[in-house]
């Protein structure tokens, strides 16, 4: 029988142990296990993907804020994606302090210009989320400690941010994140 099949070219001699050629049984074995393996891995996609942010969480993504009541030197906390946002009206002195720093000396080099909108340098809008481990830094609320660089101070692990909310000292690696936003009018900001 084997000789007959071999003669017809259907299979290579199953008793051939030289390792040359492909045995039909090996081919079926590898093909079946590979197919089942790929299928098994494909099942992981929904199992892993279900953990990511769901549609309703992603949908809560824009906030409008009236900034007309924020006087120079004041700041408010608001919410974007269930996280705090600081909207701060910088004084001329604070702007000057931020501009006086040479950006190349910073851990995360950025100028105040780059972190604000053109012609609105006094409006510093950042996430109120420390880039170290996510605590809410102090400094936006009335009477809170602003830290030695006059910006924000994170009480958890002692990160200090300056008046442009740039990291100056402590374990945080980055400046406070600037969320995407635009001025829809002179007094209204849309975040997200």
């Amino acid at each position, binding site marked *: 029988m084997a000789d007959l099949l071999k003669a017809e070219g259907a299979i290579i001699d199953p008793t051939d142990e030289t390792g040359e050629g492909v045995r039909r049984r090996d081919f079926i074995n590898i093909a079946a296990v590979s197919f089942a393996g790929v299928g098994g891995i494909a099942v992981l996609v929904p199992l*892993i993907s279900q*953990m*990511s*942010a*769901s549609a309703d*969480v992603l949908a809560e993504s824009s906030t409008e804020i009236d900034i007309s009541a924020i006087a120079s030197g004041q700041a408010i*906390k608001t*919410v974007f*994606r*269930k*996280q*705090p946002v600081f909207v701060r009206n910088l004084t001329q002195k604070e702007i000057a302090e931020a501009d006086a720093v040479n950006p190349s000396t910073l851990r995360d080099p950025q100028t105040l210009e780059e972190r604000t909108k053109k012609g609105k340098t006094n409006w510093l809008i950042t996430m109120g*989320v420390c880039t*170290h*481990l*996510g*605590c*809410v830094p102090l400094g936006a609320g009335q009477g809170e400690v602003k830290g030695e660089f006059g910006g924000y101070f*994170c*009480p*958890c*692990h*002692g990160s200090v941010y300056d008046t442009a909310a740039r990291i100056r000292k*402590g*374990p*945080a*690696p980055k400046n406070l994140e600037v969320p995407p936003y635009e001025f829809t009018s002179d007094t209204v900001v849309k975040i997200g």
Partner: protein
Amino acid sequence: MSFPWANHYKPSHPLMVWLDEKLPLPRFVYNAIGAGYPCPRNLNYFWNFGVLAGFCLMLQIVTGVILAMHYAANSGLAFDSVEHIMRDVNWGWMLRYAHANGASAFFVVVYIHIFRGFFYSSYKAPREMIWLLGVVIFLLMMATAFMGYVLPWGQMSFWGAKVITGLFSAIPFVGEPLQQWLLGGFSPDNAALNRFFSLHFLLPFVIAAVIILHIWALHIPGSSNPTGVEVKSESDTVPFHPYYTAKDGFGLGVFLVLYCAVLFFFPNALGHPDNYIPANPMSTPAHIVPEWYFWPFYAILRAFTSDFLFIPAKLMGVLAMFSAILVWFFLPWLDTSPVRSGHYRPLFRKFFWLLFIDVVVLGFCGGSPAETKYVLISQIAATYYFLHFLVILPIVSSIEKPQPLPFSITEAVLGTDEAAA
């Protein structure tokens, strides 16, 4: 395995004979923790803590399953449902305090169990696998405890979850998406609370399964003992039951007295008052601390305040914190001394106590605010911690001249081997 002189299971009642043929479960128990398991005759009270840890796991599973009957894993309801347990559910206050303090008791017991392992070098061949499985159990315990602490959805729960998941954002490139994937959102919320509850319920059973492997691996070489000398003859052993069931029973009694004293008289001593404030994503508590059992590792996390080589400070802290436990996996190969017990290793013994003090110092710093002096002490203590495992232990193993070992366990106990005959 068992020694050749181990007692054999002989069912006498016809029902037990019948059962033994169909499903030899009583035989299994007899050989595992009964008269069929010969143990070294010289085990001291430090050998109680394995059984105590098993008891704590059972305590946590029983109280935890009950609490889950009254708890609501929803960010809008969780805090109130915990207060409902405390005030309205019959005996709810006791069950919740038993569970919260049970976690602390579990860690106390397991830390003693681990330090017993350090002192008597329980990790050495042929018991490496027992040790490796033990480290896996400890990692699972830490994950379980962390997720359990999030469930009451108080201020410390919320900010603990934020800070600990924030650790993952330190990983280059995939960090931020990974953190969002873990939380199911941009910051801890309903999705995170729900999955933590699900996993907090699951993991104790995974721990139970790994404990079975841990005990299985233990039964192959048999228990170690305070001399570190292997069992040589029958006179070196006594059957587990009744000798060690009785000794463990006494130890359990002492443990329960201490546990109940905390449970009934100081139930909040180990908790944090801020966790009785409902979670508020807009306001961080002034002083975030994890539960006491994470303090030494938290201190190592905070010890890195400036960039190290090319690695940012934040990532470095995270790597160091995980390495502090992962280094235990290499312990059987870092300590190359052929002598096991610290009793016969004068130099090793000194460094063992230094390590103990070092971990206590780290723990103290981890529980203190992030002020310069505590950070500085943490940095020194964290450096010493890694030096101990990676440098001191291998050097001590090679230069130390151990004291003479007794010929056998029997000789160590009775003076001469003949006395046993």
